[in-house]
Each structure stands twice: as C-alpha cells, then as structure tokens.
C-alpha cells in the first residue's frame, strides 16, 4: 500500500526537512533521481538497491568548532569525522518517513561495495548531495563544500515517497577568492599546498573557476585510512625472519593501535586527515561553519 497519492509532496518535503534539522542536519535537499541514475555507474544506482525508489534525500551535518580546526592533526583524526552523526540522522529520518507517510524508506548504506572492495562505495553520497544542492565539488579531491555551512558530512535516505527535487547549487564556492589569489601567485591553492602527500593539483581558469581537479585518491587513502594496514601487518608477520621479528610485527605500538581500533570499531584515520580542510577558507570560515561567527551573525 502507499499513501503517496494523498500526500502533498511539497508539504511532506517541508516536514521531512524540519524533522531532519531537528535531528541535527544543517541542510537537507532532494536530488534529481533521474540524474543520479544517469550519472552513477551500473550497480551503484539507487534503483540497484531499492527498485521502487522515487526520491533521494540528502542531508549534511556539520562540522567543526573553531577550536577543533586548531588542534594537532592526530587529535583531529579522531574527532574530525562526524559522519556517524549524519548516519544516525538519516537513520531516524527513514523511520520518520515510514511512520509519518507510511512509505518504505531506507537509510542508504554508506560503506563499500561488497563486490569491489573498500575503495568503491556502494552508493555515492557525494553525488546525491551535490545533485540535491547541498554542496559543490571542491578542488580538494571533490570534497563537497557549502557556501554557508562550509564542510559537512553527508548521508542519504531513499524513499518510495515522491518529493520535489532541488537543483544543484547555482554557484560553486570553491575556489574562494583568496585561493584564486594564491593560485595566481604560486600555482597552488591552500588545499593543494598543505596536503601532506601532495595528492591534490589542478587548474583555475581566467574567470576564477575550477578548470581541472586532479586527485590521487590512492595516496590520500594510504595517508588517511588504515584498513589496508591490517593485512599488511599480518603479511609482514608471516614473512618475518624469526619469532622476535614476527612478534614485533604484530605487537609493536603502531600495530597494537590498529588492533585496538578494530576491537572497538572506532578510532581516527578512518576517513581523512583534514589537512586540506584545515586550510580551506570555505570549510573553516563560511558564515555558518564558524560557530563564533555564527553567534555574532545571530546576535
């Protein structure tokens, strides 16, 4: 059964947005499903996991305090990732939609695709959010930025409820004017310059718009995600010359840290290293991204 015929899509959307914002979302949008289906490769389209999907809702949660951007990178690696808050918001929203509108909904699985391995997501949350108009691709490896809210984590909800789609952002806030100035002077924007593995490069055109973005994701993943270190450690232990070296390979402090993270299912360096965002004027100083500025704007 479906109650969609009796539901006013615009009103439903307003309720959904209000609910998600109450649950911590800063921005909520509905993506153009047809565009996603057109762009995403086969096997990674919303209809591949929910054949009767009608709408893809994307939401973004912020962000960092100004203090957080100033802490050492190893601390930032721990609390910089706020994606679980986005996921719990989306999880709640899918329940809300079913409960309120009696329409099947799912919280979109954010992780990797079983068939392809950890570097291939099952669904592109980035694509959903971009088409829903809640972020635009930046020169920092396509990390989405929002002109008001800066840098966020995203989550999606698929639903059989029909909702009016939003348009992508009319303007891309990246590169910021100061980044264009820097690029003109030194050939790099802040994110490019301060990435510790130098995995970012690109070109800005004469109008100050992104012309090309180059991202060495392999280098970034090596730097910022540790899942591949686990089998690497075991392989090193198996190849060790003697028992002492084998034990060292498994139990040295670095590797014990990996076991710890695996045991408790948490820990830093499972998302990104944040150095590119730390220096990004949009990520850190967009009006609504900076809580200190936000309070002044509000007062």
């Amino acid at each position, binding site marked *: 059964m479906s109650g969609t015929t009796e539901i006013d899509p615009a009103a439903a959307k307003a309720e959904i947005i209000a609910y998600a914002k109450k649950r911590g979302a800063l921005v909520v949008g509905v993506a153009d499903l047809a565009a996603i289906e057109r762009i995403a490769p086969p096997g990674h389209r919303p209809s591949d996991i929910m054949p009767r999907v009608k709408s893809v809702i994307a939401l973004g949660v912020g962000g960092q305090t100004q203090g957080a951007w100033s802490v050492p990178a190893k601390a930032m690696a721990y609390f910089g990732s706020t994606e679980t808050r986005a996921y719990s918001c989306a999880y709640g929203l899918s329940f809300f939609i079913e409960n309120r509108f009696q329409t099947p909904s799912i919280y979109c699985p954010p992780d990797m695709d079983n068939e392809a391995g950890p*570097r291939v997501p099952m669904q592109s949350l980035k694509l959903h959010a971009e088409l829903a108009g809640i972020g635009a691709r930046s020169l920092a490896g396509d990390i989405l930025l929002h002109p008001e809210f800066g840098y966020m984590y995203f989550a999606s909800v698929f639903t059989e409820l029909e909702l009016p789609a939003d348009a992508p952002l009319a303007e891309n806030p990246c590169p910021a004017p100061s980044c264009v100035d820097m690029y003109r002077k030194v050939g790099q924007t802040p994110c490019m310059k301060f990435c510790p593995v130098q995995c970012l490069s690109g070109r800005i055109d004469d109008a100050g*718009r992104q012309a090309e973005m180059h991202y060495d994701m392999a280098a970034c993943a090596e730097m910022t995600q540790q899942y591949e270190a686990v089998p690497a450690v075991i392989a090193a232990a198996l190849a060790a010359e003697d028992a002492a070296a084998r034990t060292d390979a498994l139990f040295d402090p*670095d590797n014990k840290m990996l076991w710890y993270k695996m045991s408790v299912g948490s820990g830093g360096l499972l998302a990104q290293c944040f150095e590119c965002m730390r220096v990004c004027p949009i990520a850190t100083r967009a009006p609504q991204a900076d809580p200190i500025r936000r309070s002044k704007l509000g007062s």
Partner: protein
Amino acid sequence: MTQGLSRRQLGITDAMIDAYGETIFRLSNNHQIRRGDPVRDKDFAAIDAHRHELGMSDAEIAARIGLLSAQVTFIRNLEERRRFRTGHYHMLNRLGGGRRFRADRMTPFQDHFRYSEAALGLRAALAFDPERVRCYVERGLWRSDTLRGWIERHARERPDAPAIIDGGRVITYAALGRRVATLAAGLYHAGVRPGEVVAVQLLNTVEHLEGFLALSWLGAVMSTLYMTFREADLAAQLTHSRACALIVPEAIGEFRPAEWALAHRGELPHLRTVIVVGAPPAGAIAHDALAAEARPLPDDLPVPSAADPFLLLYTSGTTSAPKGVPLNSHQMLTNARLGIVEHDIRAGDVVLSAAPFGHLYALYSVQMALCAGAAVLLLPRFTPPDLVKTIAAGRASHVFAGPAHLAACQAANSFAGADLASLRLIVLSGSVVPPDLVRAVGPHLRNGTISQLWGMTELQAGLYTRPGDPLERAATSAGRASPGTEVRIADENGRAVPTGGDGELQVRGPSVFAGYYDNPAATAAAFAADGWFRSGDIGSMDSSGNVTLSGRIKDVINRGGVKYNPQEVELLIERHPAVVQCAIVPVADARMGERACCFAVLKPGAALDLEGLCAFLTTQGVAKYKLPEQLKIRAELPLTATRKVIKSRLAPSA
C-alpha cells in the same frame, strides 16, 4: 579471492597483471581528474566524455579493455595492495596545531628520529638499577631538573640578575637564555644532534660555559678535554667518546688543535665538525658564527629531559687508563640542587671556580650557581694574583678550588692584605688536602670559612664538611655524605668496618654513575656485589659520619707483606723546606715484593738526597718500613687538571 574465486579460477595470468595492472589502477577511482564542474551543471555530455578520467567502476573498465569485471576487480585490488605503504600516516603526528605541511620541512620519521648509533649507545650506558631509580623518583630526589629549565626560570623570575661575570662584562639571566638558545641553534645547524657528544677543550671562558649550557639546551652531550691534552690524549678520547664535534681555541701555546684535528680526520671517524673560538682554519667553523645563528631550533625538536645524558667525562686516571663516565641531569642536578643549601649558596651570590671547567668539580660549582640564581664569576686561567684580584673585583661569595691553588697563593703570600671580605666559603677538593693549608688560610677569611669536599667523576660531590663545622674538621676530614648519598667503609670482603676502622670508602646514591661507557670490565670492577660503588679510596668514618681519607687502594705499597699507604709520608715530605711536590710509588723488588720510590720536585736552588730525606722523616716519627728507599728528583711531575700527580706515568726505572 574475488567473490569466492581464486586467481586461477578467475583465469588471471601474470601476463594479464603485467599488461593491465597499471591501466586498471589509473582508470579506477584511485586517480581522479575532473574537468570543469559537469555534475553540478548536469552536463551529461561532458560527464560521458571524461568518465574515464573521473574514475570508472570495474564493470566499466572491463567493458573498455576487454577483461571480465571480476578480473578487473582482482587486478585493481592487487595493484592497490602492491602500492600500499604502511606507516605513511606517521607524518600526521607532526602536523596541525599551527604546524602545516611544507615539503621542505617534512622528513620521514626514520630521518626525524635523529639519534645516531653512537647516541643510542651512550644512552644505553646509563643503565641504572631499576630499583634504585624507583627509589630516587619516589623519594623526590630525581625531580626532572635541567639546566635549560633553570635558566628559563631565572630568565623569567630575575631577568636582570647577573648570570655570568667575566671581568667587567656581566651577562644577565635574560641575556644568557637568549645567547644559549642561539648558540644551541647554531650547534644544531652545524650538524650537532641530540644525544651526540661534543668534545670541548677550552679554558674557563664564556665560550666554554655557554657551550656547556647550549649543548645541554640542545640535548647534546659535552665531553671535556683537559687543556694539557695533546695529540695522543686527544685522539684517544675523541675516538672513545665518538665525539661528532670539537670546540677548541685557535691555539693552546704552540699547539693548534683545530688544525691537528682536521689533518687527522681519517683517524677520527666520528668527528664531523671542528668549531674554533677565534680565527678558524679552512674546514673549521667559527664559534662566533654559531653564536650569531639566525635560524631557530626546529620547533619539533624534543626538549631535553633530565634522563638524557648530558656529560661524558673521563676520569682523571691517576692510576689507570681513562674511563668515560656518562652522566645525566637527574644525577648531577639533584646533587647540585641539594648542595646549594649545604654550601649556603643563594640567589645573588657569586661563585668562582679556580678549578678548570674540564673537571666535574668545577661544573658542580656552575650547576649550583645556576640552580640558586647566583652568578658564575669567571677566572679563565689560574694564577695566585689573578685569583685574589678576581675575588675582590667580582665580590665572590664562594670559591671552589684545589689545595694546589691555595697552596700556590699561600706560597706567593697572595692572601696577605687581600680583600677577601665578600668570601663566605672556600671549598677545597681534587686532591689530598694538607691540614696545615686549611689552618693557614682559614684565618684570612674574616667573613667566611673553608670546607673540604670529596668527589669523583663517577658521582660528583659525595662528602663535604659544612660551613658551620669547625675549621679543624675541614682541615682533617672530607666531611659527611651529601644529601641523598649513602657512604660506608668496607673491608676487602665487602663487610662493613666498625666505626673508626680503615677500609674502602663505598658509595651509593642518586648521583652515582651507572657504569663506564663501553668498558664492561672497568664497570664490573667498579661496583661491589651489592651494587655499591667502590671508590678506591681508603678512609675511616667517625661516629658523626665524617670521613677521613688516607689514600688510594692502588697506591698501597706491599713491602714484604706489610702494607701501608704512602699518603701520610708524602704529606710529611711536602713539609720539607726543599720540596715543592712529591709522589711515592712502589718499585718491584725481587726480595720484598715492593719497595717505595719517592719522586720529588725541589724548590729552585734547593738540594736533597735520600739520606737527608730519611733523616727528616725519622724526626717526624715515620716508621722505618715506610721510609722511601729510592729518591728521584724531577723538574716536574705529570699532573691532572686538578694538579693531582698521575702516578701511573711515573716510571721508577727512568
């Protein structure tokens, strides 16, 4: 495996991996290129045109290159694994918090961890008994003091107070902090790294003192070379200490140490840098350039801790080959911190060392001054008139000297009429203190007194008399244990000797060294079975804990089975009007085993023969078996920096 299938089942060959591995990796999302902003613009034509650049799925790649999707997945994962480097993220530990990535500043951790093999070896030599360490930490004896911490504190709390007085020049604590930090940076940029040894052969100058402080500021280790050292001694110590740098004056008399070192680099494999106070020869660096370094120390350089080695000193080696003693700040600065109360050194006092900075005794006085916030008054080179003049001009409150320094002043009658009113304490140490010397000099000090101190390179200050003790005690006793130090008198079997009995002075405590550097045999011989340090000195202890020393075990002469210590005889000989200095050593003898041979330096124009000497000693009540049986007159005797006779260099046959 990919979806449960093995490489063989998937039909993947090595040739396939070789041919497609790189292509698949690059076509996948591992490398992404985006042109323009086509998704936001919903420019499907542009998206399609550049799909391969933005990263294709395995199925898309498979369709392009003619493999199966599962084969692409397998090969892509294999390529990702091949390229993966663990530990890459270590770089993050040095980023953020205001420190941003700069390619020219980032070094891999293994390069950043700049402890050389020699530095790690030296650290390892500080192998204290863990139980003793726990005891020193729990009792609050080891309190993490560092010279850098003391200087920084005084620079904050008393910035304008004098820290160094060098003739008419005064360096305040605030200035000292800046100067030492700059010199430390200069040393760093000249290649000196934490934990590495830098050998220093300088007089008691500002450069020597600031060099010591800068090295400890940097976390490097100072190893002093006596000013009397020439080629053979320098080569031996530079080699054993693994010194990476050498700081020397332009010339010591005729000798040009920098030129010698540069010419012998091939034989000194660890020596990389020669620093010269004065004009450097080609290949050496000017000290002045380091002292004017504009670059700071790298901000990620660890601040040295009290547990880091900061001195590697060689024993004066009066009876055996020199041994390297590694020392850390815990040991030395605890001893100094507790010493300032006992020696009554306070902020505003002025401390002068007549002993050379090459000797730990002099550095002890420096450490105490810096602990108390007192000033170090420099006397670059000792002469009796210079000492007296400097005391008066600098208003010295404390003088640390050897008996020979005072004896020379007495002989030159320098104290008569001198302005010694500022002096509260003269501390004597370094060799046997003649009681008459203390009795003679004491009355010159209207406002002060004399202490006797016994110490060794292996432990710094072990015993001393206190300023409140009667002068006669300082004349006849080396005093009682320094705070935290335990002493005992033990017999040959290591058993405690009853009060008043003679035996070996043995020591345990927070300043006692852990062992000689790279010399396990000497280390094993230096400690009793229960871990007490065997000083090698013979002495007795009274019921108040005051110790009177009577000589070195190794100097004992065994004449036909009768053993005696020649020290008391030596002291009597030095009272003879013709004698300046003497030393008695054993000569091998077929019948008696050993007989005593006396080496003596006579006053100008004086004469003495064996018969006359024995007649004199007999009048002084010396037993017949203790009378020297040979007399050798010498123009001078081999002396250590503290003017102790090096008996091992006296050859009776010569």
